[in-house]
């Protein structure tokens, strides 16, 4: 009898804990239903994700949305401090970086990523987006399995840090298909204050 009572108590505790966790935690993936602007984590920048895409709430940094899954394609927006942005190559950035210098750091960072090979620059030009003067950098690379990816990144160095919005997709079929969506997302970047968190 006492054992049954104990088991019931344990079950009750587990149920309460489960309910509490369900109440506290956000689902790992959320469909973007309405075209509301999202504020980038730790940033004043916002962007409008493509409707119907899925937001990955567990992204380690910045905001990540995908249509078919991150192994296939994703858009990521992130604002990093100058100390964080190029930590992988033991470099710090600053607000005075010219777009070509920023591109150089981005390329070196990508080259330092494990599992990436055959990195090639497809485009490298100054760009203005969201009111920022920055760079538009196109790259291709192969992953560990030999799959070819295209990567397009817009980045700008500001006083507080480096803001970037990037698009990765499998070169075959997906990159070209979703590129117009990405360019729309870039065009939506702004510093508006009223945005969905």
């Amino acid at each position, binding site marked *: 009898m006492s054992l049954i009572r104990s088991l019931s108590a344990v079950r009750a505790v587990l149920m309460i804990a489960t309910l509490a966790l369900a109440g506290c935690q956000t689902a790992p993936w959320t469909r973007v239903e309405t075209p509301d602007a999202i504020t980038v984590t730790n940033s004043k920048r916002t962007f409008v994700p493509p409707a119907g895409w899925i937001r990955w709430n567990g992204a380690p940094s910045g905001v990540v949305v995908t249509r078919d899954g991150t192994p296939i394609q994703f858009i990521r927006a992130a604002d990093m401090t100058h100390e964080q942005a190029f930590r992988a190559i033991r470099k710090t950035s600053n607000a005075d970086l010219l777009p070509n210098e920023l591109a150089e750091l981005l390329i070196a960072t990508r080259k330092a990523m494990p599992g990436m090979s055959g*990195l090639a620059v497809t485009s490298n030009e100054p760009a203005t987006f969201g009111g920022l003067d920055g760079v538009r950098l196109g790259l291709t690379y192969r992953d560990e*399995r030999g799959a070819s990816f295209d990567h397009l990144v817009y980045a700008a160095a500001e006083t507080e840090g480096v803001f970037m919005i990037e698009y990765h997709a499998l070169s075959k079929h997906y990159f070209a298909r979703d590129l117009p969506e990405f360019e729309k997302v870039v065009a939506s970047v702004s510093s508006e204050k009223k945005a969905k968190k």
Partner: protein
Amino acid sequence: MRLRRAIRAAGIACLVAAVGAQAATPPFERPVRPAELEEPEQRVWSEAEDVDLALSRSGQLLRDDEVEAWLASLMLRLFPDFGAALRVRIVRDPEMNAFCLPNGSIYMNLGMLARVRNTSQLATILAHEGVHFTHRHGFQQRSSLVTTAGFTQGAGIAGGLVGALLGSLVGMSSIRGFSRTHEREADRVGFGRLLAGGFDPRESVAVFQMLTAESKAMGLNDTVFFASHPQLDERIKTFRELSAVASPPAVPTSDAALQAFQPRLQREWMALEASMGQGGRLVHQLTRPDAADFYPPEAPYYLGEGYRLRGDAADRNAMITAYESAAQRAPTFAPAHAALGVVHFKAKDCARAAPHLRSYLDLAPDGPLRAHVSRMLEKCR
């Protein structure tokens, strides 16, 4: 993923094989086919072939038929009894490094080929690596926690795929994996091969002195190459002793072939080094007393890049001087003009920036910085 699996499997195979290889394993006396070997060694050999395949697909190998053919001819001089069993390939890695897999595949880093001063220095490294194969060190090697740590450490030091890849390979093949006993054996037997091949034994000392100098300049206790090898100083002493009792070859080894293709390898190496964003090694190498004669005329541009990438404000004047020297020594080399244009543009000195920016566009109308340079010129107007 396949690559990592192959490397991991190779490491495990080495572990398994090592248990069975405790008894002294006699060196190969002739080229062997894997089928002639016992099953554990066959497995090690097979895994090494997987690594070869993965490396060839990685895009990190530098294909240069002329250089590879010349390296093959050096191996034949060093190991005539092994024919084509030892094959040398070139890896796009700026480190001064080389390694040998248990199946006789030797990988020579671009950073080594670009920096050795003569053929005998290169032959010293090739002989050493070749002995790891002929004496079956890959099969005999015993894995330990130290080796496992070496895998991670190596991957951390070098960057990108090559870093991850070589970090592991370094652990499993020659650089870190072999014991001091094996390294000493490779040095000693390799020295014998060097002499028999008609190379200058005194250069064996020079190549290790160069590694020591770089190691010290880069603030490393020992180079990655020699982290678990006998200490560099000890090896220099050994080679000095061996050289003292060895006669130089009657006919000096020709460096003509090396000198013919080394400039293009040096250009590749300098560009690779700069593209990885680290300037320290460029500064160290390109300020050596013989650098002006040893490296191609564009080298001062990369020295300037080295200063810039090092990121020390005190280097600014040296950086500008180096860029100017490059523009003078190699006036048609567009990147030197872009660099000078950018430096002056950042200093808001358009009068000095504009001519260089225009030179860049004239010399490299389709150059990678065209759009950026054009934008700077617009802003200067």
